[in-house]
């Protein structure tokens, strides 16, 4: 009987709740941002600081500036659990909210980015995949609604090779470089670039795929440490795979300062579990580290002092800062779009214009209080990457320190590769590329 009543009550509640589905948002002068986050699940240690960074920057814009030119930012989080189908569900749920619908989507997973490219292009909502997703989406004539600034995986691979080259006194001839990668769409992204570079620079290149989730790498590292003995190891790892790789590398005595991860293998969550073994480990990064930027002081004074803001526990972490920068670039795209279309909430189509005409100079970075957190970017109709730079950082056991200057990836070569890959995509999908020379 109790079961029956419970069941009836649950059904009644469900039925009553349904009409509320279509409640419209109240205010009109608001810019809505959907946030696809993963605060739970196996990748939560990476997802939490990212999501906090977004929240705090948006909140700072609202409380410090009263919004973007008077347009308040609103946002809603949706938990994807780093799961592709949930990501698509979240996107569909949030895309029509707010007075002008979703402003820009940050999928925060390469798989979700892939799943959303067609949908978002059809819905005219820009995807901003900052440092992940499809590298060839940089070609704006084929992918008008996808933005990859400030650097793609291919650019990251090139920057790492440039760094290695500078450490090897300019020549990589006869050197051995190994790539340890997560065996998924994400991990495979840099392979083509590294293969092309190995031909160009004359180093031998070996591949070591690691099956998801990457907890079992003993055999991989025995082979690397005892047999192959490469001069450098590059890693495209994700989640628990990173800390495991660092531990296994230490176990076979591989020197940590010859071991470089991509930016998803270079946050606190990746090195701390490996303990002292991680000391000396390096990673590429396109956002700055630490809590020294003016924006950090503002968040401390305007948010944390008033007990708002979410990022107190993750303040200044690599991924928190990346969340801040990502939010800041999105906000600047809104501002750019407003410069053309007026100070009101922007639609996805207007945002697309805003992104393509985005020009964040060093002056703008200083004015925003992001000094040291990012390098200047300038996007255009055909270049959705914007020419950002990559920096190599090293873990000293307590924090990350820069060990290189900002490195500019060699974009002439990369653009050719982007073009070739994007044109193949266009052919497969029957897309006629836009003519960017007319814009």
């Amino acid at each position: 009987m109790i079961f029956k009543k419970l069941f009836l009550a649950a059904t009644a509640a469900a039925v009553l709740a349904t009409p509320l589905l279509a409640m419209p948002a109240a205010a009109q002068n608001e810019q809505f941002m959907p946030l696809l986050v993963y605060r739970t699940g196996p990748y939560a240690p990476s997802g939490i600081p990212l999501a906090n960074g977004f929240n705090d920057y948006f909140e700072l814009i609202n409380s410090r500036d009263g919004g973007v030119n008077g347009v308040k930012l609103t946002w809603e989080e949706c938990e994807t659990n780093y799961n592709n189908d949930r990501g698509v569900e979240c996107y569909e749920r949030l895309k029509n909210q707010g007075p002008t619908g979703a402003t820009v989507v940050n999928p925060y997973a390469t798989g979700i980015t892939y799943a959303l490219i067609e949908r978002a292009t059809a819905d005219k909502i820009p995807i901003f995949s900052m440092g992940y997703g499809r590298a060839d989406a940089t070609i704006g004539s084929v992918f008008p609604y996808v933005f990859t600034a400030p650097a793609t995986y291919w650019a990251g691979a090139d920057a790492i090779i440039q760094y290695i080259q500078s450490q090897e006194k300019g020549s990589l001839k006869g050197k051995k470089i190994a790539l340890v990668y997560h065996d998924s769409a994400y991990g495979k992204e840099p392979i083509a670039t590294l293969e092309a570079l190995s031909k160009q620079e004359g180093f031998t290149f070996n591949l070591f795929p690691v099956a998801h989730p990457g907890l079992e790498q003993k055999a991989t590292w025995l082979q690397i440490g005892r047999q192959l003995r490469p001069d450098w190891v590059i890693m495209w790892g994700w989640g628990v795979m990173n800390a495991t790789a660092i531990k296994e590398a230490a176990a076979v005595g591989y020197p940590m300062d010859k071991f470089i991860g991509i930016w998803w293998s270079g946050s606190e969550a990746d090195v701390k579990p490996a303990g002292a073994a991680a000391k000396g480990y390096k990673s590429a990064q396109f956002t700055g580290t630490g809590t020294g930027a003016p924006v950090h002081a503002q968040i401390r004074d305007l948010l944390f002092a008033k007990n708002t803001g979410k990022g107190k526990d993750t303040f200044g972490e690599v991924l928190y800062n990346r969340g801040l920068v990502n939010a800041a670039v999105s906000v600047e795209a809104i501002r750019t779009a407003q410069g053309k279309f007026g100070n009101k909430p922007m639609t996805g189509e207007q945002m697309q214009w805003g992104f393509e005409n985005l020009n964040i100079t060093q002056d703008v970075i200083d004015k925003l209080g992001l000094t040291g957190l990012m390098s200047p970017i300038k996007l255009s109709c055909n270049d959705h990457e914007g020419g950002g730079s990559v920096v190599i950082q090293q873990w000293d056991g307590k924090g990350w320190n820069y060990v290189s200057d900002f490195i500019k990836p060699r974009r002439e070569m990369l653009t050719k590769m982007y073009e070739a890959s994007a044109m193949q995509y266009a052919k497969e999908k029957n897309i006629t590329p836009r003519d960017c020379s007319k814009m």
Partner: protein
Amino acid sequence: MIYREAGQFKTSYAADQGIFPIRLDRMGMVALLLIAYLAIPAVANHYWLVSILVPFLVFSMAAIGLNILTGYAGQLSLGTGGFMACGAFAAYKLATAFPDLHIIIVLLLSGTITAAVGVLFGLPSLRIKGFYLAVATLAAQFFLIWMFNKFGWFNNYSPSGVISAPPMHLFGDIYITGPQSSPLVKYLFLLTFVAIMALAAKNLTRCKIGRSWMAIRDMDIAAEIIGIRPLWAKLSAFAVSSFYIGIAGATWAFIYTGSVEALAFDINRSFQVLFMIIIGGLGSILGSFLGAGFIVLLPIFLNNAPGLVGWHIPVDMLAHLEFMIFGALIIFFLIVEPHGLARLWTVAKEKLRLWPFPH
């Protein structure tokens, strides 16, 4: 009182052996189809069609497939994800190699290819049973995913290993895949496809071949003694099951997400489908639908519910609550009816026939 079959006399064998022998059931089925074909397209919005109904239909198809193998033929399989991937990649190769092939032919062919792969991995079932077979099919799961990841030929050497569906026409100018396709077309196409496939599955299980599966499931030695060939029965179960699962995988990649990587069909996908048929009801086509509905729709409903009634719960708390309530409901339903939701429906039907008199 309403659900009464008094006065319905069956005058032919055909009437007696129909899928729905009771008139009220037939009317219910017609009503259900009318709702699915007319009412839902009229009221459902984009969100409902794309992210709730389409995956529900795709998973229903996969659950029917696994139910044929595990529920009807009694062969426990953990390879569902691998077979779905097989269907998806087969469809992708077919669609890109022969761009003029119609989507229905692509789907059926990819199902056929998966069926062949299923038979291959079904061979061990002739020697091993139960949990040991589960381990053998687990090998299929890992091998297939590894293979699609390892060899670039399967994804036309895409640098990331992601396959993405080329735009395809259903008929005339109406697209079923790609960015120009409307969710309504996708839904109606899948609905028709799944309905026909479900009807076929239901009839398969009621004819000679289905009975031989059930005989093997209930006691294989006895089945062999009465003249059922285990080789034929088991391998046909693997073939038919993989056919359905392959089509489910292909529709997942082509119609639901549009682009997919092999990792989307990992072991968790196998478990997900297995849980669907356990909760829905082993050996029941209706159960496949109920289970798919339970596993696909309930988490989304739980995730949306607090927002709908105006509560604002932080997303991480919400995700944890979703897990807890979902888990509790699984245990609740399995305690109330260990044979699944389909059995619950049968029991309810029995009670309704007698109601309001208890005897």
